């Protein structure tokens, strides 16, 4: 099982790296799906089968499809890929690269200066998750529901075509 974990981890890292380096958005999305699937595998290994399923269905399924739709609507062609390559100049990588390297080194340092711990891949059943969700975390569920609602309304409001709307006081001066 450990081997599977490491393989899945490798896949996840590589595909994620591909996600952030692709020029074409659709390619990046495909790599993203791969990455999510590999993470789902890791979830499964860790005994969180329910979450693994959610990962596949919601993330890789719903959310990524949403992205694909948007990319389609934006109608990005080869011209945008070319533009992307111009934007991705090596100079732009250096700063973030150094910052991130520092961060990961610090993380590794923290993790490996403490005593080693292993995780027993013992499963936590969906039932337990459900009980926890509707027990102590009921408030969080409510909030998540409101958030989703707000997301729907917001997306609807932002997404539609509309006239330029200005503040009533600004109206006069801008006309």
């Amino acid at each position, binding site marked *: 099982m450990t081997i599977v974990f490491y393989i899945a981890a490798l896949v996840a890292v590589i595909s994620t790296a591909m996600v952030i380096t692709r020029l074409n958005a659709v390619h990046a999305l495909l790599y993203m799906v791969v990455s999510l699937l590999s993470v789902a595998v890791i979830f499964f290994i860790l005994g969180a089968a329910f979450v693994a399923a959610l990962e596949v269905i919601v993330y890789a399924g719903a959310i990524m499809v949403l992205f694909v739709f948007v990319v389609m609507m934006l109608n990005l062609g080869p011209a945008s890929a070319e533009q992307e390559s111009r934007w991705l100049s090596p100079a732009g990588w250096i*700063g*973030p690269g150094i*910052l991130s390297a*520092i*961060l990961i080194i*610090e993380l590794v*340092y*923290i993790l490996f200066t403490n005593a080693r711990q292993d995780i027993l891949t013992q499963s936590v059943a969906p039932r337990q998750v459900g009980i926890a969700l509707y027990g102590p975390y009921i408030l969080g569920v409510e909030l998540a529901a409101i958030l989703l609602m707000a997301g729907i309304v917001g997306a609807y409001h932002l997404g539609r075509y509309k006239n330029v709307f200005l503040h009533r006081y600004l109206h006069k001066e801008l006309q």
Partner: protein
Amino acid sequence: MLELLWIVPALPFLGFLILALIGSRMPGKTAAAIGVASIGLSALLTVFIGINFISSPPAGRVYIQTLWEWFNVAGLNPGIALRLDAVSLTFIFVITFVGFLIHLYSVEYMEGEEGYSRFFAYMNLFVGSMLMLVLGDNLVLLYLGWEGVGLCSYLLIGFWYKDPANGYAARKAFIVTRVGDTAMAIGLFILFTELGSLNIGRLLEVAPLNWPVGSSMPVLAAALLLGGAVGKSAQLPLQTWLPDAMAGPTPVSALIHAATMVTAGVYLIARMHVIFTLAPVVLTIVGVIGALTLLLAGFSALTQHDIKRVLAYSTISQIGYMFLALGVGAWSAAVFHFMIHAFFKALLFLGAGVVILALHHEQNMFKMGGVRKMIPVTFWTFLIGSASLAALPLVTGGFYSKDLILFYAFDGERANRWLYAAGLLGALITALYTTRMVLLTFFGEAKTHLHHKPTWIMEMPLVVLAVLSTFGGFVELPHTLGHLTLFSDFMQTILPGNQVAEGGISTELILQLTAAVTAILGIFIAYMLYYKNPERVTALRRSAFGSRLHAFWKKGWGFDWLYDTLFVNPIVWIAEVNKSDFIDLIYTFIAWVNRMFNRAFSFTQSGRLRWYAMGIALGAIITLTIAVFL
């Protein structure tokens, strides 16, 4: 009768109000009628009141009429109250009477001028203010009149406002006198702080009780009051404004800058004589100022071309005599000379006005000449006035008044031979420049033709003033000539007398002879120099030293230049440099620093999403690094 006193100043004020409010809408004749009538009625009333006052004097020889209390704060309670006594009666008589004559004269002189009613309004306001000055029962009310006449002087000097030079002269007059007034105001503060009252009667009573002779407080107070007097009366060192003040219409020069306002300083010192007696040092200074001024102004008068400027310097010089008289403690002599001077100097100015008008506003004496045939009445009256100014012995009022001053300077209780010598020298110079003026103006050959022939309205005041300046002197005759002391007896109800040293009459006779000889000598010299052989004077003036001295005297001993350099220019310079207020720079700097900070911080707010993310990363790294490694 005395209860009607308040009407005397009220009438001119009423005239002013009417003229100021609706004067511009009434015909010129009406305006003039109102202006003249108000002063005329005032003068008439003054005569009645004067007769009444002399025939049945009130208790203590002082009559006080309180109209209302002006204000009353913490013991400072000046009233709008009038004080009539010998001194103020003399003054109001001169003011209203000479004022009336000059108003009458102005009716013709100012005819056809723009702002005819405005002129009479200002003149009425002046007479009213002057009366308040003289009649004021307390120093605050006196100060009101004092500033009021200063204002009218300003307004009337700048009457022809379209010429900026007139405006400049007007401002100069107001500001220079205001410098003196400020000193006087501080003097009032000292008097009130130390003596607790500004009521004249009370001050005169309380001062000797509280202050020993010669102590520092009366010296300070008297010196500050003297500052005010010096400013108003155009004495050293504040005399510079008066020659320029001649920019005003001639009746104004006659009334304000010769007869009345400029003698306010004399009035003030005579009024506050107790304070000055307590400060002998200051009294001596008064005398010295008078002596210096009369000499300086006399020399300047010798060199002037403008007839009005000659008269202006002569006025300064004659007021110098009054100061000299005050300085030697000859109080009544000073007031006497004031009265006679008012008559003959007003006469001279009015006569000069006739000449100026006759020659179409020509004021340069060298362009005049030979007008005696054209305007005989003016000529003869002018001659009488000049004789009085030159103190021609026996027949002129000026001789008696000036002689009295010289007598006390030589032989009085505060006699001072130096002052006497200055006075005598001054008399010589006076005779010189007077004769020069008369010769240049009226004799010689005519250079222009007659432009305006005066009617009786202008000539009548001349005649009356000529009579007054001749016979006015006979109310006070010296021991040697009938010994009549009407005037000084009258004055001594208020002002202290002056003890004369022993051996009086013979000394007096010698002095009179000296003075008479001096005057006649002066006239003779002038006749020789300016009439018989004027080329000698011209040659003197052409010489290197002579020309320089001439220019120096003509410019009034360079006082204007001195003050411009010392005060005016530096202040103007500072004001110009600091026009936009250097203190503002401090706040501008604070604002600038803030704006710099704003720049610096707004640079970090690039509006780019990734820039902010980078900021978050940096912050996280720093925090983490601190948390992990420290």
